[in-house]
């Protein structure tokens, strides 16, 4: 078993390599097992239990929570929860698309600057990370209030009834979501734009390609890895967001993140909260799976 091997120039044995690997990686593996995997399993189990009369968990197998999520509650069928799920997907998709549309040209702009300017601009992109999300949301609340210039302009133009603000509502949610997710789209895109091989662009030009064709064949394929990372990094947080929609969306614009927060908080209905969390997890995984599958097909075709 203790066969001698040379591992990147180091003479050692297989057994010693294994021991070392286990010691080094063991900490993270145990941490994930204890604090991520086991709790996730507990939560999944929780989704199949009942809420007691005082908000306690009754360990009794039931599918009632899932029926409720699908709209079969105590009273007649209602689409409320499905609407929240659908709206969440919609908001996450729109946020992702908006982030990409803003981040893609920005990545090119930053990558085209001198080394020093690039560092400064990337620093600016990161600035929002240094400010608490809640504070940023309150900033938007103030700015979009009914007496502030943006709302006034909208009132004057007739888009908004007098004495109403742009907050709370869909617009405020999108503004908040895009502001908080944009850095996650810019950074991976910038990384792939910075490494772009411009000789492919020249080759396409040399081969008579008009602008659209140059982009499609010389630029887009090279930025695909960054684009993939950007999509994943914006879509997943956007699906689970609850601070921004809670503060900027108001009661009428509830997203799945708020629903979960509400069940574990005010409603004291942990089993139903766990069920909604499961649904969110499954939906996100399906989304990623569809996206990945499509990307794979794109690479083959």
């Amino acid at each position: 078993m203790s066969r001698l091997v040379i591992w990147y120039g180091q003479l050692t044995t297989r057994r010693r390599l294994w021991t070392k690997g286990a010691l080094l990686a063991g900490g993270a593996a145990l941490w994930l097992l204890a604090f991520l995997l086991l709790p996730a399993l507990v939560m999944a189990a929780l989704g199949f239990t009942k809420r007691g009369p005082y908000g306690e968990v009754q360990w009794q197998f039931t599918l009632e929570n899932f029926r409720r999520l699908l709209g079969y509650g105590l009273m007649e069928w209602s689409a409320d929860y499905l609407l929240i799920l659908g709206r969440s997907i919609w908001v996450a998709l729109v946020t992702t698309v908006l982030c990409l549309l803003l981040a893609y040209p920005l990545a090119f702009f930053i990558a085209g600057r001198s080394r020093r300017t690039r560092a400064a601009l990337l620093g600016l992109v990161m600035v929002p990370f240094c400010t608490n999300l809640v504070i940023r949301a309150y900033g938007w609340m103030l700015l979009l209030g009914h007496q502030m210039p943006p709302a006034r302009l909208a009132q004057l133009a007739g888009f908004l009834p007098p004495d109403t603000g742009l907050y709370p509502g869909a617009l405020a949610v999108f503004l908040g979501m895009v502001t908080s997710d944009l850095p996650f789209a810019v950074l991976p895109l910038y990384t792939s734009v910075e490494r772009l091989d411009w000789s492919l662009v020249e080759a396409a030009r040399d081969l008579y390609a008009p602008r659209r064709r140059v982009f499609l064949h010389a630029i887009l394929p090279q930025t695909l890895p960054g684009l993939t990372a950007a999509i994943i990094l914006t879509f997943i947080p956007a699906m689970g967001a609850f601070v921004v929609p809670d503060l900027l969306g108001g009661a009428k614009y509830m997203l799945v993140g708020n629903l979960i927060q509400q069940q574990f908080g005010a409603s004291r209905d942990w089993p139903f909260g766990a069920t909604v969390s499961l649904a969110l997890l499954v939906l996100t995984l399906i989304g990623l799976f569809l996206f990945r599958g499509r990307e794979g097909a794109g690479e083959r075709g």
Partner: protein
Amino acid sequence: MSGEQGELRVEGVSKRFGEVAALCDVSLAVARGEFVTLVGPSGCGKTTLIRIIAGLELADGGRVVLGSADITRLPAHRRPVNTVFQDYALFPHLSVRENVAFGLRSRKRPPEEVERRVAAALEMLQSEGFAQRRPHQLSGGQKQRVALARALVNEPEVLLLDEPMSALDAKLRAEVRLELRRLQRQLGKTFLLVTHDQDEAMTVSDRIFVMRDGRIEQAGTPAEVYEHPRNRFVAEFVGAANLIPVTASDGAVQAAWGQLTTLCRPPWQEGILAIRPERVRLCTQEPAANGLRGRVRELIYCGAHVDLLVEPASLRVRCAPSAAVQVGDEVWVELPPEHLEVLSE
């Protein structure tokens, strides 16, 4: 004044990058169907010049004329010129066939025509065998063929080749040179090659332009440039040369070790004579003229020939490997007057 059909003329082109002058008032003319090479050390401006011809760089001054059309300010995708890039710049997400079809599809040629011409180009470069593969699945030599096919399928008036062989190993490079030459003769197209490898320049070209510091130092057929280098730079850059500092007065040329006879009279008082190592003759006794008695200091065995370093004057003498000479031997060498080049500088 309108040029001949297909003739490429560069007239007084200059280009600066910030403080650095990449090209200073460069002019050259390439006839239709000619294989011309720009050769020079890195940084001499040769790549800048073909990038200006391709439309990938804008000249600060001067004109580029193709046939009778001034193309100086024509964008790259409107010029009847195609480039083989240094690292080939093949599109990684497209197959070989799609890469070759790219230019024709850009110009919206009918599908039947695209298919026919792509098939012909792939056949011409013996690339049908890997037409379905992606660039990352190809060897260096295969990539090179695909890059050639991708450019030639568009039937450009001028094909520009930017150091196309620098990524290949020595043996393959020698094969590709012959292939390039064959291809150019077969198609009768104008090829303009850029290289830093003077061997490559000599073996493939009809004419070569030796460049240094943004200027053309000498132009001519490979034989002209090799046999009659104009100055010290060309003599040393193209092939190996013995440089002999001499003084000249009243028709008598004086080297450090004695008098020398040359065919033409040097136009200067102090200057340099050049002679190729293979032109220096090893003698058993004192020759009639231009003889030198020396000692073999070093012997370099090169297989096909042997190079001797003879003192005084560190003269390099190339002779057959059968020559019975050893280090330390006293020898006579002759510098035949007809091969002593008077450098004009």
